[in-house]
Structure formats: C-alpha cells, structure tokens
C-alpha cells in the first residue's frame, strides 16, 4: 500500500505543481502560495513513503529489491532511498519543490514571488513528469524476492549518506535562484531590490553546495583507498562548475544589491548556475563519461536530460536576450574600488568556470571523434591553480577597499606585514620540510590571505578592545571567515599536493617499514565478519615518538553486491594524516601483501578550510535574514560610499 500511496502523492504533487506554474505565471495571488506549499508537502510525503519502504525492507518494491538488503544497517537503509537513480530523482523533486515551498513561506507576496513560484512550478512539473514516466521509484514486482540486491558498498558510508542531500540542496537550490532571475526578467525589473531578494537563496544554495562537495571529497579521501580527495574527475568537475559560478554570483549580487551595478551580468550568472547544474547532472547520469563516482548511468536518461537542459537554458537565454539590453548600468565608479574588486573576482571565477567546463567536456568530444586524449590533474594544476592564486592575491585588498574609489597606496602600505609574513612562512615551509619548491606559491598566497584578512578584521574592530569584536556586523564575520577558510584551504591543498609521500611496501609477516618517522610492523592478516560484509583485517603495529598502537586497515567484501571496499586506517597527527591501506596479496609470493603507506600533510586544513567557507556563507545568510527590513515596497537608498558595514576604513572621496 505504502508505495502506491507514494505514487499517488507524487501525482498529486504533479497536479499542484502544474497549477502552481500556470497560476503563478498568469494571475498570481494567494493561491500560488498555497499551491507551492502543497507541492512541497506532497513530495515530502512521497519521499517519506519511499524511505518507509526502504526501512521496512518492502522487497515487492522493485527499487528496494534492487538496492537494499535485510543485513544492511538502518542508517544505510534510509540513505539507500536516495542512493540510486530513481530515489535521487525523487530527492531532486523534493528539494526543488521544497525551495518553492520555502519561497512561498518566506518571500514577500508580490509579482516577483508569484512568477518565481510559477517558474519553479514549471521546473518541478518537468522533474516530476520525468520521475513518473522515466524513473519511477514506486514500481512493484510481481514476484518479490526474499531478499534485496544490496547497495554499492562504496556508498555505504556516513559521509556519502549525507552527501546527496547537501549536494542537491546546493545545485538543485540553484533552480530557485534561476526562477527568481527568470521572474525578474519577465517582470523587466532587475534592480537592487531584486538582488536583495535573490541573495539569501543564492547563499543557501551555494553554501550547501560547498558542504556537499566537501563531504564528497572527504569520502573520496578515506573510502576510495588512495587518499586522493580531488582528482579533477569529470563528476567532481560537474559539481564544481556550478560552485564557481555560484561563488561569482554571491559576490556580484553584493555589487548589484548595494550599488545597482552589473545587473545584467548578475542575472546572467543566476541563470547560468542552474544551467551548469543541469549540465553536470547530464554529464553524471547519462554515462557519456567514465568516472569512479559515476553511479546509476543510462544513455536514454541522458537524452531526456539533454532536452531538458536545452529547453531550460534556451528559454532562459531567450528571455535574457530580450530583457538584458534594456537594463541600465549602475552609478559610475573608479576601476580601483570595491566595485572594481568584485568585478575582478567575477572575471577570474567565470573564466575559471569556463576552463573547468572546457577541460571536462573536451575529452568527451575527443572520444566521440576517436581522438585519444585525457585531461586531468596536471592540466588544471597548471592553468586553474595559478589563475586562482592571482585572484587570491587581491583578496585582502578587495576586502579593505571602499565603494566608488579606493586609494591603493595606503592599502598596500597597510598590508605589508602580511606580505612579509607570507614570504617568510613560504620560504620557511620549503626549508623545514625540504620538499619541492612547488609549495611556495600556494603557501605564499594562503598566508597572505589569512594574515591580510585578519589584519583587515583587526582594523575594523579598531583599538576599542575585545568588546567591539562582537559588535562587528555578521556580514563582516561571514566574509572574513569564508575568506580565511579559503586561505587555509589553499595552504592545505598545496602543501598536501606537493609534500604528500606515498609508498607501497610488499610485506610479509613480521617485516618492518618506516615512513615519516613512523615504524610499521606487519603482523599478518585475519578474517572477520561484519553485519553485511566479510573482511580481511591486517594487524599493523605502529610506533612513533615512543608510543605503540595496533591499527587495522581492512579490505571488505560485500557478498550481496559482489564487490569490495578498502578501509584505510588513518591516524591523525598535528602535521597531517598517516594513511595505511591494505592492498592485494602478491600472487607469486604467498604471504606477502602490498601495504600502502602515505603521509598527507595538512589534510585537515583542506576540509576545515572548505568547511569555513560554507560557514561563512551561512553567516552571511543569517545576517541577511536578521537584517531583513519589514516589508516595504520602496527601495533603500544606495549605501553611501563609506558605509559602516562595507568599510570601517576611511571614507572614499565622493
């Protein structure tokens, strides 16, 4: 019964979503609001029925039979509901309609809201039609099996159970940003008020996307068994492109909201972010590429997604081409100003997104043309990384700049200690670690950013003492924390990439190996049984700084799925992780196993930095929500050049 109920609820959601889009784009009014909330409720309940089917192991539901198993722990039974194509499509619909419902509840009722809900209804309708026709999760089996087919064991992991909800809140969330942009274009009103109303949604989606991507990277780091957290894999790039455009968007929205400038560009980014989300979904789900992350692929779905992408993108661009030329420029400003800095940010981030796009799709075209070509880490490290490094050099200056016009000379003078510190630390890092000079640019830029942002923060606090720290506006904190996170991330990522060491030792019982000052003694392997897997566990005695402990890297085999995973044994040290993987036994030499030992310096800075970026984004969102003025129709005046929030520094000459 429960699956039929879910099916029915999805149809009800389809009906309300369709009415929501028709009413929203025509008459508007209170009914649109109620319909949007209803659509959200129906999809939520529909998702719940699917989760119940998974938890109660209703194997008469085809999807449950294929993807669950009685031996699976409860949390993965729940996560199993979206750990497959059909279920993740329902999650997609849920998040899309959820944004619609949230918009209905939180946005002020006017034409912009109604039309945004209308467009969102249209997107939700299309998604639900696709769900119900091409990938229904509610299909029953005539002859239910006694037990299920299990789940890809790689996905049986806490980080990856949470990864899809966050990732989707991110890039499906861009759909609502898209909808408000489309609504603004239909209304012909892309102004400061519009930007102010898009911003919380863009911040929500972008921050959630940051968390989603980070969870994916953490999962790849410890679960795939080679200790890599980012490999410029097409699937990773697919989520990174909307992230980059989203990052550009949350910055250009500031410019448009505060100054009324760059409206046409901002709305273009708002449209583009969701188009890239769709493109990413197409790349991941259609099977046009191979990747360690690509689960649930099917060429036929690809065609449908491609049509959806073409329709959505085409219509949005047509709308844009119709309205954008009529949008007026904002007030004038000097190139050296906060406006200029934000434009610089957008220039680099959007060229970066174009770079990632070309680097991702070119090998696919090459393959179609039978040209042998791969594009991977070395390419992005030599193009994307230096480009972003240059951008980050401007970050502290941009943060301290003033609207309209900024005097560069006093700024440069002010930040010299940060520059000196950066140079000293970078040289010190090479000397102390004895590692390649490749760490220099990254550490230099990272330290410069962290120190520069901290100095700017100190300047804003002023000499008034600790008490004033808490009086800084939340937006300033959000910005500073996100920027410091970026700096820490860059330090971590470059150090990890340049100074990580990895070695594979063929070891027999009792043999010792040494690495990074640690001693490892291989004490053999034993077999054990987990809830739904068999495991080969190695006993490795590690000694470091006089302490001894036994660690257990594992190789798990999941008989139901017929595949296995490697479970690395990871030990944290202040300087980084020691990472031990049990490899395969060597065929020609019985009793000898390959043990991979790696040292990943500053790896926590990578994930911690990314986490801070997301926290900064959420703080900016919180500031935005708190500051929200009581519903007024008129626009606030353009902030004066030396507004308190933007610049605690000296006022700019007007």
């Amino acid at each position, binding site marked *: 019964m429960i699956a039929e109920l879910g099916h029915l609820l999805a149809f009800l959601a389809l009906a309300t979503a369709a009415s929501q889009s028709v009413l929203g784009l025509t008459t508007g009014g209170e009914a649109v609001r109620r319909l949007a909330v209803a659509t959200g409720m129906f999809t939520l309940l529909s998702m719940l029925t699917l989760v119940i089917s998974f938890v109660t192991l209703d194997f008469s539901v085809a999807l449950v039979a294929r993807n669950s198993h009685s031996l699976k722990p409860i949390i993965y039974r729940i996560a199993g509901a979206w750990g497959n194509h059909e279920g993740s499509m329902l999650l997609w619909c849920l998040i899309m309609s959820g944004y619609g419902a949230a918009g209905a509840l939180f946005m002020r009722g006017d034409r912009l809201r109604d039309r945004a809900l209308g467009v969102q209804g249209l997107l939700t309708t299309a998604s639900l039609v696709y769900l119900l026709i091409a990938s229904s999760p509610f299909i029953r089996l005539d002859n239910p099996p006694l037990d299920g087919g299990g789940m890809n064991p790689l996905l049986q992991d806490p980080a990856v159970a949470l990864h899809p909800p966050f990732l989707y809140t991110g890039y499906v969330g861009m759909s609502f940003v898209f909808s408000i942009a489309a609504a603004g274009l239909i209304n012909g009103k892309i*102004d400061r008020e519009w930007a102010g109303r898009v911003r919380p949604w863009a911040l929500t989606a972008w921050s959630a996307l940051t968390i989603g991507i980070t969870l994916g990277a953490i999962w790849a780091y410890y679960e795939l068994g080679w200790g890599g957290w980012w490999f410029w894999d097409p699937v990773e790039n697919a989520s990174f492109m909307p992230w980059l455009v989203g990052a550009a968007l949350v910055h250009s929205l500031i410019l448009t909201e505060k100054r009324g400038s760059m409206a046409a560009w901002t709305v273009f980014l708002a449209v583009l972010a969701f188009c890239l989300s769709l493109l990413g979904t197409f790349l991941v789900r259609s099977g046009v590429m191979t990747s360690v992350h690509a689960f649930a692929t099917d060429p036929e779905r690809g065609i449908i997604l491609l049509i959806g992408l073409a329709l959505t993108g085409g219509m949005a661009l047509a709308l844009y081409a119709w309205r954008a030329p009529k949008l007026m420029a904002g007030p004038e400003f000097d190139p050296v100003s906060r406006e200029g800095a934000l434009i610089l940010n957008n220039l680099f981030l959007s060229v970066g997104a174009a770079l990632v796009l070309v680097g991702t799709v070119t090998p696919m075209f090459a393959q179609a043309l039978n040209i042998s070509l791969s*594009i991977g880490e070395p390419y992005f490290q030599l193009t994307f990384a230096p480009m972003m490094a240059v951008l980050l050099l401007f970050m502290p200056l941009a943060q301290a700049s003033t609207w309209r016009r900024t005097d560069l000379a006093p700024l440069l003078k002010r930040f010299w200690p940060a520059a000196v510190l950066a140079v000293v630390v970078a040289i010190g890092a090479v000397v102390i670690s004895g590692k390649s000079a490749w760490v220099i640019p990254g550490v230099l830029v990272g330290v410069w950013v962290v120190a520069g942002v901290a100095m700017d923060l100190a300047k804003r606090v002023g000499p008034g003492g600790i008490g004033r720290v808490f009086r800084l506006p939340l937006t300033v904190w959000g910005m500073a924390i996100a920027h410091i996170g970026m700096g820490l991330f860059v330090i971590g990522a470059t150090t990890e990439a340049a100074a990580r060491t990895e070695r594979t030792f063929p070891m027999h019982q009792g043999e010792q190996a040494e690495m990074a000052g640690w001693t490892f003694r291989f004490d053999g392997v034993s077999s054990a049984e987990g809830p739904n897997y068999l495991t080969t566990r190695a006993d490795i005695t590690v000694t470091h700084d006089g302490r001894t402990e036994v660690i257990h890297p594992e190789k798990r085999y999941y008989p139901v799925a017929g595949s296995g995973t490697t479970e690395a044994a990871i030990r944290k040290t202040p300087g980084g992780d020691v990472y031990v993987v049990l490899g395969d036994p060597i065929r020609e030499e019985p009793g000898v196993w390959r043990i991979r030992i790696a040292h990943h310096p500053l790896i926590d800075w990578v994930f911690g930095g990314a986490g801070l970026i997301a926290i900064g984004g959420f703080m900016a969102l919180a500031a935005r929500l708190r500051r929200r003025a009581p519903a007024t129709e008129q626009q606030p005046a353009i902030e004066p050049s030396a507004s308190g929030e933007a610049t605690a520094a000296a006022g700019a000459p007007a």
Partner: protein
Amino acid sequence: MIAVLLMAFQLAVDEPLPNPRLEERAQSLMREIRCVVCENEPVSQSTADIAVDMRRAIRTQIGEGKSDDQVRHFFTDKYGQFVSFRPPTEGLGLLLWAFPFALLAGVAAFLGFRAFRSRHRELSPLADDGRNDVSG
C-alpha cells in the same frame, strides 16, 4: 651500461629511487600517467598489477636518466595520448593550454580599456532609483 641494467633489476616492487630528487620526479609522473585498466585513476593510486609494472617502468627510466618528456613519450607512444592526464603541448593541444589565459587576458583588456576611458572623467554625483525598471 651493465651497472645500469643491474640496478634496474634490483629495483623491487615500488622500491623508491635512491636519489630523492629523482624519486620525486618519478612520483609526480606516476600521478599523471593513467592506469590503463582502471577507471580514471593514475598509476600512483592503483593497486592493479599493471599499475605496479607501469610505476616500475617510470622509476627505471627516470633512474636511467631519461627526461620527464621522454618518459611521457614512452607511454603515449605505447598506449596513445589517452594514457597521459597531461594534454599534449603541440598542435591543437596548445590551444587547450592557451585558451584560459587568452580568455582572461582578452576580457581583462576589454574591461581595462573601458575603465581607462572612464578613468579621466569625474565621477558624477550619486543618482538613484527607478534604475533598471524597464517594465514601462
């Protein structure tokens, strides 16, 4: 010559090169050569037998004093350009390397030109409202 060959034989599975500089070069090559039986993995990360062989081949050749490019060519000649995560720096591959910087420079030049033109004009007093309302 014989000494070199002997050394190559003595290199056991994943035995690092004695010279740390050479080992570092070898490791960075291992990160850009693709394991030919895996899905989108470099040989540095794979535990497949062939990846072990490929790692050994890289170390042997670096140990013999070959340049990074010679090692890359060894693999691309054998398996095609597909085996290298680093696109070629000749022919059309050059376009791939140049386009991001060209795009950045192009747009920056355009923006810079516009900024330069307006630079010498005085900023007008702030004006506001009604801006960008083109709904009529």
